[in-house]
């Protein structure tokens, strides 16, 4: 008599291909996945709770740590939410600077994804190339903010300081070189037989399932839904730039790969446009109740000293109310929901993280597939566990 039994195995939380501390409880029949249950929370840090006890400015340091691969987007979304609550308009130059850094950050985040997901399928050399290019962006970030990761560069009402002179030739040199390098990587992968066999038709997420699970970002677009926050709800002058939204057809891992590769090219296009049309002017709002006075005023003006003191010790007092603001991060819709009661600390800061929703759709992608394809599925949704667990 032949018995059919399923085998339950545990993948993670310490596993090289889970891209962090993700645990999957997999039920297998032979090599076929019958069910998959993700277990998360290993990286939960309680940032949302912590933020209720800090002033609005102090929280910028905390939000950087949530999604560490795209900190600029994290700050971006948080600052947009506070600015919406305050009802202030950021100077045009600051908006452009934010776009430049956010798009560079998108490229660097996608490069990490490309390198690590290729590594999962044993294309080991690509990781080195991707990190070489990412290093350039990290150095640009250091030039601008003093930090390679977790920059703390955006301020409520603008950015901390203007871009340095030496930033411009350096970023142009990188952007001139970048398409050629991207072509090289595509030569390695796009028509590579092994790469196609391992990715095509694997981890399929149909359009309806993507919508049911609230999936956003490249994963949603690869399933054929052209939703991008930058186009649907333009923020920070994104309506000034020309760029395309790449969309896939089949919703498989290969489409996600194609979408992200094209997004890197589009991000470069946006940065070039923003550099060409970068307007002159201040990079921080003039409102002294919101933004710190410049250093040079402190030695001459008593008002500046008082404002500085009030902002540092007490912080800003936004009006009572609730807002939701979102940006398109490399992983999808990154949103902040803020509730204010008129005091200097938020009552509630909710971080709507794209990785959380995207990961929830993982069981749909892997059910009925092979065990080896689970690795591909995880890589193709590009989760950051810090973002999932917050």
């Amino acid at each position, binding site marked *: 008599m032949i018995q059919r039994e399923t085998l339950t195995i545990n993948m993670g939380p310490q596993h090289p291909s889970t891209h962090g501390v993700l645990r999957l409880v997999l039920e297998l029949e032979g090599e076929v996945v019958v069910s998959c249950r993700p277990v*998360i*929370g290993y990286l*939960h840090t*309680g940032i*949302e*709770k*912590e933020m*209720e*006890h800090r002033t609005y400015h102090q929280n910028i340091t905390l939000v950087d740590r949530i999604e560490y691969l795209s900190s600029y987007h994290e700050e971006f979304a948080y600052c947009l939410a506070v600015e*919406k*609550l305050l*009802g202030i308009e950021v100077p045009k130059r600051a908006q452009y600077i934010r776009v430049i850094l956010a798009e560079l950050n998108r490229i660097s985040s996608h490069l990490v994804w490309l390198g690590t997901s290729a590594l999962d399928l044993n294309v080991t050399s690509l990781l080195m190339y991707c990190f070489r290019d990412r290093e350039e962006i990290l150095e640009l970030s250091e030039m601008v903010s003093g930090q390679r990761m977790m920059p703390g560069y955006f301020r409520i009402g603008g950015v901390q300081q203007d871009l340095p002179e030496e930033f411009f030739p350096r970023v142009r040199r990188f952007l001139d070189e970048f398409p050629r390098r991207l072509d090289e990587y595509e030569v390695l992968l796009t028509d590579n037989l092994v790469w196609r066999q391992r990715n095509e038709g694997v981890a399929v997420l149909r359009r309806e*399932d993507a*919508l*049911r*699970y*609230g*999936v*956003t970002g490249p994963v949603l677009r690869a399933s054929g*839904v052209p*939703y991008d926050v930058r186009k*649907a*709800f333009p923020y920070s002058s994104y309506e000034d730039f020309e760029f395309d939204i790449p969309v896939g057809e089949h919703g498989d891992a290969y489409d996600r790969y194609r979408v992200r590769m094209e997004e890197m090219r589009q991000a470069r296009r946006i940065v070039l446009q923003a550099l060409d049309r970068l307007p002159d002017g201040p990079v921080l709002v003039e409102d002294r109740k919101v933004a710190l006075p410049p250093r040079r005023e402190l030695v001459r003006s008593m008002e500046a000293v008082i404002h500085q003191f009030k902002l540092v010790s007490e912080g800003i007092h936004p*009006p*009572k*109310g*609730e*807002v*939701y603001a*979102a940006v398109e991060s490399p992983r999808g*819709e990154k*949103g902040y*929901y803020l*509730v204010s*009661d*008129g*005091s200097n*600390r938020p*009552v*509630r800061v*909710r971080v*709507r993280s794209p990785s*959380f*929703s995207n990961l*929830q*759709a993982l069981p749909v992608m892997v059910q009925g597939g092979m065990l080896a394809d689970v690795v591909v599925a995880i890589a193709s949704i590009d989760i950051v566990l810090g973002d999932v*667990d*917050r």
Partner: protein
Amino acid sequence: MAREADLSPVQAFLQERLGEGVLEVHRFRGDATVLVQPDRLLEALSAVKEDPWRFEMLTDLTAWDRYPTEPRFEVVYHLLSLSRRERLRLKTRVPSSDPVLPTAIPLFAGANWFEREVWDLFGIRFAGHPDLTRILLPDDWEGHPLRRDYPLTEEPVEFRGYTPKVPSQTIPHVPPHRREDP
């Protein structure tokens, strides 16, 4: 609260459809918000999911604690309509004595993890949820940390020579001189 007078069409529709079920409607900084009674929540969610509104995506589901006001918890549903490029915030309130809401999983499969998170961090139950267990915290955790009466404390550290500081109490959120009596 600064309010913009004109309501969006979907807000007007919900007001007409639910009548008494809608407790409050406002637009603050352009965000359309509708507060409904808990027993009419599913009706509201499914009404706006249909044509012509098509709010077919649940972007976010969360809650916040209005302590010490009652009903204490406000549960917030952020909906997105891809075809209309519009967002809608549906809210409802539940009391601390019996914080239960019906689950939204039949309408939006993605509500599953969100509801587990709200249960985990706020202790609000969702009736009909197939697997309402803790999601971010360990299974044996006591209490629900995002409640405002849950103090922010220091974690014990097992190093020799470490003298623990006094656990930080909940920092009073509104200083007394700024507090408005409800």
